[in-house]
């Protein structure tokens, strides 16, 4: 019941690798890490959720904060490789139309 946040700089973007659960306990840590990246002017941030096996509305809230931050700092936020259950929450809430979410695995198929 924890979340690891690993940030790697590659190919001109910040890749955030998440593993574990995003809930009320772990969300503050994620928010801090995410906003520190989206607040960099013009930064491209890609969040990989392949290893996130649980997320609830606190996680959605963090990504909404991140999105707002990108608008203020001219940066970009993209979520990739979401598990079905996590992707479903973005669908149910309508956030799928607002946040750049790419469900398919890297390289795509």
């Amino acid at each position: 019941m924890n979340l690891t946040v690993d940030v790697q700089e590659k190919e001109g973007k910040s890749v955030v690798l998440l593993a574990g659960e995003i809930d009320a306990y772990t969300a503050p840590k994620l928010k801090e890490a995410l906003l520190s990246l989206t607040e960099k002017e013009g930064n491209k941030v890609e969040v990989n959720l392949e290893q996130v096996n649980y997320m609830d509305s606190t996680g959605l809230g963090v990504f909404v904060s991140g999105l707002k931050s990108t608008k203020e700092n001219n940066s970009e936020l993209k979520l990739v490789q979401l598990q079905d259950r996590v992707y479903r929450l973005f669908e149910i809430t309508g956030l799928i139309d607002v946040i750049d979410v790419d469900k398919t695995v890297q390289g795509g198929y």
Partner: protein
Amino acid sequence: MESFDFIEIKVPAKPEYVGVIRLTSSGVANRMGFSYEDIEDLKVAISEAVTNTVNHAYEKDEDGEVTIGFGVYENRLEVMVADHGGSFNLDQVKRNIGPYEAAEPIEQLREGGFGLFLIDALMDKVEINSDSGVIVLMTKYLHENGVGLDDDQISTTQ
């Protein structure tokens, strides 16, 4: 009177215990025979209700507790989440629920307050009572989506 088993858990209203409730919920639902999908729905819905209580206690700087009751029935699970601290503004909570609209300006997107919307979307029935503190009562039925293989076999032999 319909017979049922009742399980009650009380934890401090702190974020670190939301995951503990989630694990317990998963265990109870699994024992009842809920599908993987339904168990995941229950985990999110129950976590949302507990998180609401935890955030509320946190805002008021209270050392509150949250009580979770599981009513295990033959055909359904009833989950009660009770916050015995002060009551919050239910009208305001209701105003803040609902899906996002693509047309909504990003600046106006809310970062919280849609937990209840998810609870409503993921459970079969949700009732909220705010007379003394807040009690969320939510129900999920077993085999809600379609008839299982076993049921089919029973009906053909009848």
